[in-house]
């Protein structure tokens, strides 16, 4: 078994559910209350993935970065060394999908080989969606990233999205 540690970031506008996705993935928890993140909160989650004939024990260091505009000027310094990122948008807010290319560009400027996965979150709020899956798919294709409709609340596709990023960063 090979052991690896990789830094991956969660990027996206404020209140899209980045912290909730990490909490769901790492602790299997969800809290409806919105609590703004300032700065960065790093969590660790060990996952085991196949790589060719081997198995890889991957320690994912999850950097949950503040999404507020006020953090924009310093975000780049937090991105150094990142092997990939989950780009998170909120299906109930169209502007959050429009922001993703800028986050992707910022990450790839610092780490040109970084991998991306798009998580269109709040999939559970079906009646409130203002983004369609087709729109998400198109934006993800433009970013050369796989996408998942996730729900930190129900846990839908959360594990899958992180595992997919794990597979990409150890490939």
């Amino acid at each position, binding site marked *: 078994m090979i052991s690896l540690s990789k830094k991956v970031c969660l990027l996206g506008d404020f209140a899209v559910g980045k912290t909730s996705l990490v909490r769901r993935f790492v602790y299997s928890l969800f809290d409806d209350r919105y609590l703004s993140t300032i700065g960065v909160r790093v969590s660790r989650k060990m996952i085991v993935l196949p790589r060719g004939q081997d198995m890889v024990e991957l320690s994912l260091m999850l950097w949950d970065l503040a999404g507020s505009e006020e953090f924009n000027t310093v975000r780049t310094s937090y991105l*150094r060394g990142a092997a990939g990122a989950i780009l998170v948008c909120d299906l109930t807010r169209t502007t959050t999908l429009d922001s993703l290319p800028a986050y992707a560009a910022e990450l790839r400027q610092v780490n040109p080989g970084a991998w991306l996965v798009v998580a269109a979150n709040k999939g559970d709020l079906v009646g409130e969606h203002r983004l369609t899956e087709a729109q998400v798919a198109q934006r993800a294709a433009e970013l050369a990233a796989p996408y998942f409709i996730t729900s930190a609340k129900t846990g839908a596709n959360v594990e899958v999205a992180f595992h997919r990023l794990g597979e990409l960063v150890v490939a």
Partner: protein
Amino acid sequence: MSDHLVQAILCDRRIAYAITDRQCKVIAVHYCSPALQIWMQDWIGRALAEVVPEWLGSESVLADVLSGATSRVRLSRVNRELPDGRTAYLTLTVLPHLDDAGQISGLIHVVEDETAIGEIEQRLTQQRNELRLLQEELRQKNLALEAANAELRRLDQLKSTFVSIAAHELRTPLASISGYVEMLLDGDAGPLTDLQREYLRIVEGGARRLTRISRDLSDLTRIETGRLEVRRQPTDLGRLTEMVAAEHCPQLEERDQRLTLRVASGLPLTLCDPERAAQVIGNLLSNAGKYSPPGAAITLSAGLAAEAGFVQISVADEGVGIAEEDQPYVFDPFYRARNVVEVGASGTGLGLYIARSLVKLQGGRLWFVSTPGKGSTFFATFPVAAAAG
């Protein structure tokens, strides 16, 4: 600077630090705050990336400092969960540690506990973000309201078009019906029996009523689209009132209702559209007759208004009156008060709406006073010709 002084400053500023060798293994630590002590007390002998998870997976960043490629790395507002569930906010800075020869011998890892300011910043950010979410929600709701409003306008336009077409298309056949009924009643097609005459009178009454509805619908459309025009001219409103009273007398007499006419002498000329002013007075008289019981007294008056520069028409009846809860709505189109519906009086609910619009267009006011069960008085004012300029 003495060690004590440095120690005091570091403690006061809640600054701790660790020193590593070139393999990033911690060889010395210094801390004052209890919170940092809990975290840092077992660092010695361990790899920096092991004790500070922010550096795990980012070893290349530390290597850059060790090699001198980067002079410092700084991460501010690093969140650290405290045992009591609160969040500590730290700033982590990695600097090269130089030996006596000036060579990089390891790293200095500085930890600044900025929880107090971090908590304030978090609360501010929280409030700002919640406000932004509310603004965004408000914007979305406004867009939805605008869309709903546009749809309502479209439907309203569609309704106006339909009403206008329907009213217009009714007019021609109604004119034929009225014309031929009149000819029949005049004996143009031969003598009539009493029964035939009675039936024809019923047809004539129905056609008159339909014509009135058709005219009201046309007026409604014109008012809503702003195309209703009045041709104002100096008019003897007293004389006009007498004429309208004479026209309505037969209908009132049919119901044994007594019309009293009071026209003040020497009234000044008013500036109004005589046809439309007659329509208003006729409408008020018609309502008074409809909503009053047989035998009731109706008084139509014309005189100077209390408001200078206006002549006032009033129509007082002894009818059902208007309930207090209905009073705010009687001038709304298609509104019919409950007691009016209960007594079985016919009508579309357009008369008063049109009458008030017409009065307003002519520069006057239309209002009423009413006591349920006792009757109502409606007042309409028209500007005096000279005063209206």
